[in-house]
């Protein structure tokens, strides 16, 4: 084969499609919860392509999450891997919520022992709801669980304890 000189004929450098970018981003695991991808997590709000420039709208989860910078650089690497020029825009508004975690993402979380977040209600949660609500144990499915600590090892999680199977577990906070 002759050396590739006509780049327009090279399949890898064919015009980028948004589908290809979404697929590549879906291969990036959440740095702190590698059982789900950043697409499952719902932090990619939009992908737009203008020639070789790939514009991604990235909505951070918890603002103090130390994984955000890593997610951003991994997205940029993935886009460069497709031959695109990444432009990741961090959207600092209220558009990310735990409701954006996909159904598939929730199942993966549960299977890994993290109770997925409950749906966001119109009113913010109260202590009574968090103490009395029917939060299911991801290990045995019991609702006989109690709040141990509103705060956990990362900003996104609380600690609960299951009185049936006597296991502690991490519950995603709803925001």
């Amino acid at each position, binding site marked *: 084969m002759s050396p590739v000189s006509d780049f327009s004929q090279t399949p890898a450098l064919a015009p980028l499609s948004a589908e290809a970018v979404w697929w590549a981003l879906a291969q990036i695991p959440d740095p702190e919860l590698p059982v789900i991808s950043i697409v499952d997590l719902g932090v990619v709000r939009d992908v737009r392509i203008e020639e070789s420039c790939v514009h991604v709208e990235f909505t951070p989860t918890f603002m103090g999450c*130390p994984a955000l910078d890593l997610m951003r650089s991994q997205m940029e690497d993935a886009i460069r891997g497709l031959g695109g020029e990444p432009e990741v825009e961090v959207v600092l508004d209220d558009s990310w919520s735990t409701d954006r975690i996909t159904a598939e993402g929730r199942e993966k979380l549960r299977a890994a022992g993290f109770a997925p977040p409950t749906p966001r209600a119109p009113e913010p949660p109260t202590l009574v709801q968090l103490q009395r609500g029917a939060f299911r144990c991801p290990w045995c499915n019991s609702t006989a669980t109690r709040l141990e600590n509103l705060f956990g090892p990362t900003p996104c999680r609380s600690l609960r304890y299951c009185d049936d199977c006597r296991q502690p577990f991490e519950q995603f906070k709803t925001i």
Partner: protein
Amino acid sequence: MSSPSRVDLLLDLADDELILGWRNSEWTGIAPFLEEDVAFSSIAQNEIGHARALYELAARELGTDADAVAFDRPVAEYRSAPLVELRRLEWARTIARHWLYETADAVRLEVLKASDDAELAGIAAKIDREEVYHRIHAEMWIDRLLGSDEGRPRLDAALDELWPYALGVLDDELRPELVTRVEAKLGRSLPDVDPVPRGKHETELADLLEEMTSVRRSAPAGARW
């Protein structure tokens, strides 16, 4: 009373969150029990995350970067409220400060969420989603201390000491709402005192900044990790 410029408003919020985040992190490893060690560490992480986002908006207006705004200003230019600067490694005072701050912050965030400035309103709404958990935590502790024979007098003494500082977090217009909320929760009235105003720094701030910026100052060209 003239309202502060947009960048000053961002710095009021960011400086409060950064300094309080630092103070809360001082409990990491030494809180009275493990759950509170985790709670105060996590709250500190959230507050510093909020500060970072707010500094990024301020930095854009100032034509610099967030770290420079957060760490390179002289002490006198910080706009934080003295409430967050106090070093109070004593549990009742820590809880009193935590609750007073979160209550005042909630009043301020409600106004910002309704702002015509869409960017400010958006970031306030996002911050507030996380602050809900801080408020639940603070109120849980207030109920616990109020319900205990040892806790109540200690909390009351701390609240009386910190009250003029709490009033200084908010401007004249929002202060009455803080008084209403605090008095309703405590079931008693608080003294009508002059607020300790924002920008009137306690000596503790200089010590805090000295410690917080020591690594950055040790590598002025930028540390690489």
